[in-house]
């Protein structure tokens, strides 16, 4: 058991607050037509930021689904810039430099879970320290990849943390239509690994659970399934209208349990947080956002960028398609 220190709690709340205001700005930009469809983070901040703080960015990996990046900035300042590039539709948005141990976003649900098992397995075979944390949602826990990967991870005993963000909704499908199991964590029994449920709105509890799972994994004791139970406070994506299906009173109750308010109240009580700190952090986060967004928009795209990185060397066919994109002059040079 390892409770986060006061400094860590402050840092976690800082990341949560920053992610929330940046998400709001991103939402507005989407409504202005400046970025594409995206999945807001509202309500997920504690589970994601506390996980990131319980990990070591120098050796641990994070394989996200798609909602996480704004709360993963502890893994590298580049995360924000690349996420914004991604959201404006720039090909380089999915490229993170080798020092940032975060995989590209994964739109196809649960497909990253087998990758986490393979990556952790490969690290073990090469005697590389570290654990792999893979994020997925309650909806993804119904996918075959979850079961196949959980089964193999249990067999191999690889250092993976299966971090299920149970936000109660898979677009409009509520949890009770997703599974008859009492909890998603209970499914760990079928994999021969421990499974636990934590309050995903309690940053300290998430930190503690991830820290313990990480210690077990590093000690060669294998994978853990952690189900962080929380509530999706926003829409599934910018293309979704949750008022069609989320009961208003349920959402209202969930808002009273907002993870940011909870941790903030705790730290204020301890004299570790005040309004000025809060305002400064929001302002800094927005300044970082604006700078990264400007940089993203100024990032050039080569006329043939669309065909880069498909294969190491262009096939004859692809080379012809590239030369059509480049036009006659460039093609000859």
């Amino acid at each position, binding site marked *: 058991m390892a409770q986060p220190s006061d400094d860590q709690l402050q840092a976690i709340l800082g990341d949560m607050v920053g992610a929330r205001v940046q998400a709001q700005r991103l939402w507005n930009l989407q409504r202005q037509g400046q970025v594409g469809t995206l999945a807001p983070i509202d309500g997920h901040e504690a589970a994601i930021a506390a996980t990131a703080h319980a990990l070591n960015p120098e050796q641990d990996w994070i394989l996200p689904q798609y909602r996480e990046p704004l709360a993963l900035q502890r893994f590298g300042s580049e995360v924000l810039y690349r996420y914004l590039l991604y959201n404006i539709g720039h*090909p380089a948005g999915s490229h993170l430099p080798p020092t940032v141990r975060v995989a590209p976003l994964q739109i196809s649900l649960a497909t990253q879970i087998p*990758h986490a*098992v393979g990556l952790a397995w*490969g690290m073990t075979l090469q005697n590389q320290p570290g654990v792999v944390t893979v994020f997925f949602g309650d909806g993804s826990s119904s996918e075959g990849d979850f079961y196949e*990967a959980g089964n193999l991870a249990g067999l191999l005993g690889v250092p993976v943390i299966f971090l299920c963000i149970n936000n109660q909704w898979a677009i409009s499908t509520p949890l009770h239509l997703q599974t008859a199991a009492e909890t998603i964590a209970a499914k760990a029994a079928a994999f021969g690994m421990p499974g636990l449920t934590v309050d995903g709105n309690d940053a300290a509890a998430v930190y503690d659970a991830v820290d313990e799972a990480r210690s077990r994994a590093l000690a060669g004791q294998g994978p853990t399934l952690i189900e962080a139970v929380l509530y999706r406070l926003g829409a599934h994506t910018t293309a979704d209208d949750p008022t069609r299906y989320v009961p208003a009173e349920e959402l209202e109750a969930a808002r009273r349990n907002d993870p940011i308010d909870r941790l903030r109240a705790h730290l204020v009580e301890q004299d570790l947080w005040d309004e000025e700190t809060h305002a400064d952090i929001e302002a800094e986060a927005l300044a970082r956002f604006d700078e990264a967004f400007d940089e993203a928009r100024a990032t050039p795209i080569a006329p043939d960028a669309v065909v880069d990185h498909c294969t*190491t060397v262009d096939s004859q066919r692809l080379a012809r398609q590239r030369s059509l994109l480049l036009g006659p002059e460039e093609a000859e040079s």
Partner: protein
Amino acid sequence: MLQAVNEALHLEMARDNRVVVLGQDVARNGGVFRATEGLFEKFGEDRVVDTPLSEGVIVGAAVGLAMSGLVPVAEIQFLGFSYQAMHQVAGQVARLRYRSQGRFEPAITIRSPFGGGVRTPELHSDSLEGQLANIPGLKVVMPATASDAKGLLSASIRDPDPVLFLEPLRGYRGIKGDVPDNEHLVPLGEARMARQGDDLVVIAWSYLVEVACRVSDALADEGLSVAVLDLRCLVPLDLAAIAAAVDHCGRVVVVEEASQTGGFAGEVVATIVEECFWSLEAPVVRVSGLDVPYPVGMVEDVFVPDEARITAAVRRTLETA
């Protein structure tokens, strides 16, 4: 051919300790066809791994292994079962380099036997090369000789891009031939003239090259000169070799074992039309599997193109004015 596959695996595992083999029954049993025989004993349980019955995670874990810097060689026991991994093959393996914009190198080889003629149960014989070739990012390699099986498999394992390496079930024991003893590499994307000829060229890949060669040999006794072009790789496709053969012969029959509609033979015909339409002296003819699911044993010989069907197509094409 089976022995050639096994030799290539032994050589590549010995040459590069990043190579790991994973799949169902590949370690202790040496594979259900013995393609991986001896690897477990020689390279140990860390590098030769029996997986659970889980095609999706065999391929999905290979993606993660590649992300960690290893060179996975995954086996799907029969290609028809790859339907249960297609979301990882098409959605993940093929796009790992593209999605990460070059950060991750998907040096993944997926070996899988396919094709008919050996009276297997359902879904053991399906030919899916056309579907696989339509997935950008994948290479599709289909050897027709024992020597090529070794040389192309070594080249596939060393290739930094993902390769679907499809081995003909009938060829495992039915295709025999000399194989170089030591290291043997055949570059990906270079077709091979299996028979020289002047009157017509049969374009084929995998086991049907063998069948086409038998047709060519039989017709040679009648004084007909039928060339056979073995594509070896569907992706990357050797456009120049196709054009050269068609320019030389003027008449073409394309044969494939997969169902015809949407199949790769159609792609070859389209290539001929684009590259060398004016060399054609007769319409191009396809000989394909039928547009039904791969059938059960007592009727499978009607499905798979054989010497009689290919011979008839060749004669018809030669007779066209």
